[in-house]
């Protein structure tokens, strides 16, 4: 081998080493890119395969024999073929990154919305708690009001009875006068009993809401039937005297 040929092969060998280093750099970059692409969900296995073929084709002649450079054209073809998938992979990764960026923005927006909804939910929960306490308080107030109404009604009836006993109304005074007159028409021994009986019935009628007409009607009916009552009482006394 001549000196010129040796120099030539030495230059070829240096170029081959340089290209092999570049191919290794490319391989590392592709490996990182593929690892990242897997995280993004992009399938770059064909690119990896081409890359491995390129490395193998470049390493083989350098390791075995610089004379055997027949694989270099194939390596060059592999490197050329690698360009298009890498561009495609780059575009895919770029698109995927864009999609992920949009998704991230959506997620951030959703997070903000979720925070807002959570704040509203907390606010609503606090209001619901207040409303529930308000309902229980209103229930208690309603129960107390019902009891108060019942007690007031009872007191009102009692007060009305006492007021009527202390200050009988005009209608009751007139009817009581008729009842007293009716009692005076019966035998003396029964007058007190019937006077009291008439009076309590008159009070019961007034408590039940009987008006002037009803109370005076009661007194008049007593007065009209006094002779009949007198007859009955005398007859009873005669029968008692006979028996």
């Amino acid at each position, binding site marked *: 081998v001549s000196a010129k040929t040796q120099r030539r092969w030495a230059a070829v060998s240096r170029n081959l080493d340089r290209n092999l280093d570049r191919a290794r750099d490319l391989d590392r970059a592709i490996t990182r890119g593929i690892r990242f692409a897997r995280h993004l969900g992009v399938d770059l296995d064909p690119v990896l395969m081409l890359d491995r073929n390129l490395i193998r084709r470049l390493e083989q002649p350098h390791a075995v024999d610089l004379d055997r450079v027949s694989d270099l054209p194939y390596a060059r073809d592999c490197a050329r073929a690698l360009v298009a998938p890498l561009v495609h992979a780059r575009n895919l990764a770029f698109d995927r990154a864009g999609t992920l960026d949009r998704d991230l923005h959506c997620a951030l927006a959703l997070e903000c919305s979720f925070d807002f909804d959570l704040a509203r939910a907390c606010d609503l929960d606090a209001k619901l708690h207040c409303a529930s306490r308000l309902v229980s308080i209103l229930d208690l107030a309603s129960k107390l009001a019902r009891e108060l109404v019942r007690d007031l009604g009872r007191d009102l009836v*009692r007060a009305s*009875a006492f007021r009527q006993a202390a200050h009988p109304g005009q209608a009751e005074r007139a009817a009581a006068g008729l009842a007293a007159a009716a009692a005076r028409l019966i035998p003396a021994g029964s007058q007190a009993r019937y006077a009291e*009986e008439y009076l*309590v019935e008159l009070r019961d009628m007034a408590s039940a809401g009987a008006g002037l007409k009803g109370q005076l009607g*009661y007194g008049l*009916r*007593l007065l009209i039937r006094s002779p009949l*009552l007198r007859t009955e009482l005398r007859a*009873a006394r005669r029968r008692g005297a006979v028996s």
Partner: protein
Amino acid sequence: MSKQSGPKMTLPTQLVLRALLVEPTQEMYGLQICAAAGLPSGTIHPILARLEGWGWLESHWEDTDPSEQGRPRRRYYRLTRAGAVRAQHALTRASTPLSGVPGLRPRPTGGGA
């Protein structure tokens, strides 16, 4: 002239007895009996006196304090045991025709009064 064996059974008397016989052991005061019999208030005292005179009824004053109740005492009436039996028989025998009661006669179907 035959001796009378019981009170005169007028229609109001029958109504009062029927009202008392609904629950013979229950005590009722005057207005209650009026309401149960469907008679106006102030009309039953002669009837009650008649029935009491014949021993069919017994009465007593309400056992309460008038000052506490805010009203006079009520007079309560109740059929005696014998009175309830006799009243039942008397009502069974009594046949008061409605046509004999003034105001309860059926109206004429046509023509003048």
